[in-house]
């Protein structure tokens, strides 16, 4: 029987040249072929952390359009509410994967994030953490879990370095500081970290007293009274949004304006703080993971957010949630397929310098942690946030010391 067969050589040549043509025409054809990546977004949109979860969601909602305009593949977002509960978080993660999610993102709370990380690792589905405080999450030897957010020691190192630079710029420095922190995962991690990180820097001030307060406290008068009694120059603080507002109110009522309020956590730069306290919100300086106002993508994100959520200023929650999706789309493009292993490898080799957050860009070390992140330094001025350090990124001179609360009308 005769068989007509393309000889191996010719067939190889045919296949090979087809492949060559395909790769040369790469971008457009690949895009046309890449189906939207199914990304499960897990955030605490109800329950105790609803405020933060819904804020993060704003960053996730504007992402698809921006990513499309950057020429990145489309993402099909599947939203899920962890309800600020670890059981729900785990069940939702399983359900998303069951419904076809090819990548997970979330989840702000450390306990819920750790639960989701386990599920992701077990299933071999990449999980990009937008924000989570506990350092341990990326110490578990996971191969599919990535975190693009600084751990407490990283924030501290960056903050102390920035503080030294700021003191240089303003030509003044406090000699003593009282350290107040909220007694939750983040606050405690920061408190433990200070003992380790601070001695590495030659800080001009010493911490004379440390005051931890209950995250559910509605009244911080005793804590502020204690802080005031420490007679320190400056107030070093790690708090959340509600405590920041409470603390400020107590500072006003108890008539104590520190030389400076240096925050190394959320709250003092957030919209609600600025809006609710008005003139009383001016002055505090935040050393936090933040957007770099000089990066092009920051402006794009800011504009998009202004359109979708008018009146909301761009800040940490939006930035890192957006970046997590940016990482996903970028990795997808480079991997060329939704195969989880390929995606995970692609994420691990991420190198995005055109991002939003402060620092050299987005890269991951072997543990899946972006250890190059830096903090920005912003001060509240006239209801807006201005970058005051480092010198290259500064938009304005820092106001130092703070105007006494009693003198503000």
């Amino acid at each position, binding site marked *: 029987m005769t068989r007509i067969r393309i000889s191996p050589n010719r067939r190889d040549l045919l296949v090979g040249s087809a492949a060559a043509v395909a790769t040369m025409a790469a971008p457009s054809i690949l895009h046309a072929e890449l189906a939207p990546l199914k990304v499960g977004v897990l955030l605490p949109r*109800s329950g105790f952390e609803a405020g933060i979860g819904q804020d993060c969601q704003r960053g996730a909602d504007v992402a698809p359009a921006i990513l499309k305009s950057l020429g990145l593949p489309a993402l099909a977002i599947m*939203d899920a509410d962890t309800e600020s509960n670890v*059981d729900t978080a*785990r069940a939702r993660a399983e359900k998303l994967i069951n419904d076809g999610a090819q990548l997970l993102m979330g989840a702000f709370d450390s306990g819920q994030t750790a*639960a989701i990380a386990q599920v992701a690792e077990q299933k071999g589905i990449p999980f990009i953490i937008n924000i989570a405080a*506990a350092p341990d*999450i990326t110490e578990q030897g996971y191969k599919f879990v990535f975190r693009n957010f600084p751990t407490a020691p990283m924030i501290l190192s960056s903050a102390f370095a920035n503080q030294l630079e700021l003191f240089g710029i303003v030509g003044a420095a406090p000699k003593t500081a009282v350290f107040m922190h909220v007694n939750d995962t983040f606050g405690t991690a920061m408190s433990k970290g200070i003992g380790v990180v601070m001695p590495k820097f030659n800080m001009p001030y010493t911490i004379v007293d440390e005051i931890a307060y209950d995250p559910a406290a509605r009244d911080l008068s005793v804590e502020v009274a204690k802080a005031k009694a420490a007679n320190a120059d400056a107030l070093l603080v790690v708090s959340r949004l509600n405590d920041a507002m409470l603390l400020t109110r107590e500072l006003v009522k108890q008539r104590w304006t520190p030389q400076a309020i240096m925050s190394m956590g959320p709250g003092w730069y957030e919209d609600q703080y600025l809006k609710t306290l008005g003139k009383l919100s001016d002055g505090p300086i935040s050393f936090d993971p933040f957007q770099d106002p000089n990066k092009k993508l920051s402006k794009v994100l800011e504009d998009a957010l202004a359109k979708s959520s008018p009146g909301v200023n761009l800040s940490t929650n939006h930035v890192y949630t957006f970046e997590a999706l940016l990482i996903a789309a970028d990795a997808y493009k480079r991997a060329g397929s939704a195969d989880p292993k390929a995606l995970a490898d692609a994420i691990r080799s991420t190198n995005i310098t055109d991002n939003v957050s402060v620092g050299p860009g987005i890269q991951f070390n072997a543990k899946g942690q972006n250890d190059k992140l830096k903090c920005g330094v912003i001060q509240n001025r006239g209801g807006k946030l201005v970058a005051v350090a480092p010198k290259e990124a500064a938009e304005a001179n820092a106001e130092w010391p703070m105007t006494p609360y009693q003198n503000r009308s």
Partner: protein
Amino acid sequence: MIMARVIARLSGNLSAPTLFLLAALGLALLTAPFFANDYLLTVLILILYFAYAGQAWNIMMGFAGQLSLGHAIYVGLGAYVAALLFTRYGIAPWLGLLAAIPVATACGAIIGFLAFRFGVAGVYFAILTIAFAEFARIGFDHLDIVNASAGLFLPVAQYAHNDLWRLRGSPTMFYYVILAATALAFVLSRALLQSRIGYFWRAIREDEIAARAAGIDTFRYKMYAVMISAAVTAFAGVFYAFFYNNLFPEQVFNISRSIEIILGPVIGGVGTLFGPILGAFILTGLAETLNAVMLHFGLDLPGAKQVFYGICLLIVVLALPNGVWPWLKRRLGLAEELQ
């Protein structure tokens, strides 16, 4: 054989339909991992976890009539003891359990002793249990040995193969562990109910003063109830610690966890044997169904699911004051089990 006699004793008084249904349920649960996807398996693990914890709570409430609203303290103590021994000394969870049980039991004994010696009963007892749980929560939030509020993380190894001794492995392994535990708790409850202790408990629950008048040492038997309940709950904590691999006092000892534990038995039927298990199925099933329904209708409103959930709870508690199981039992025509 002793086994045959024990089984005969436990299942005596049960009608044929009851045994049949029980066997069918057992079979379904045993084979579940073969036809359930991972999501469903996780849901089943959650259901069985709450069934187990609810069963443990039921011993105190349903049998001896002591309302505990702070049961999370036993879960938390069990979890932290086992987790601490594992992370610091590499002691396997099953050995850790041997340490966790005495700790939880001692805690229960303290609460029981204080309450019963000083005549704290009813709602006041419930408030006392809440106070202890909150005390533990805030206390552990400041305990450096367990990393305080920064959280205690258990080292997660691998998932390639199941290590039953160290409780590291796939969800299927955890499923069978909790299934076995729930079955054991169920059998234990049945055994307790049919024993002398069980009779005394029921007498105390019905009318404590009369029971005392009849010569029952009510203090001692109430203590037994609290201590046994605490001891059984300790395992739930160990399971929790090794399943989630991280513990935060704020979450583990939280009053909402205590409330979650009692929802199952109350909905299912306090004091019944099967109530906690049925309740757990109903509640978790309800929650997941609501999620699925809302997803189907594209209703993406945070908080809406909890509103519907609350409404369903209201309807059940209004319509079926004794719980779903007694009503279901009558509907299915099953013989009255020895209560």
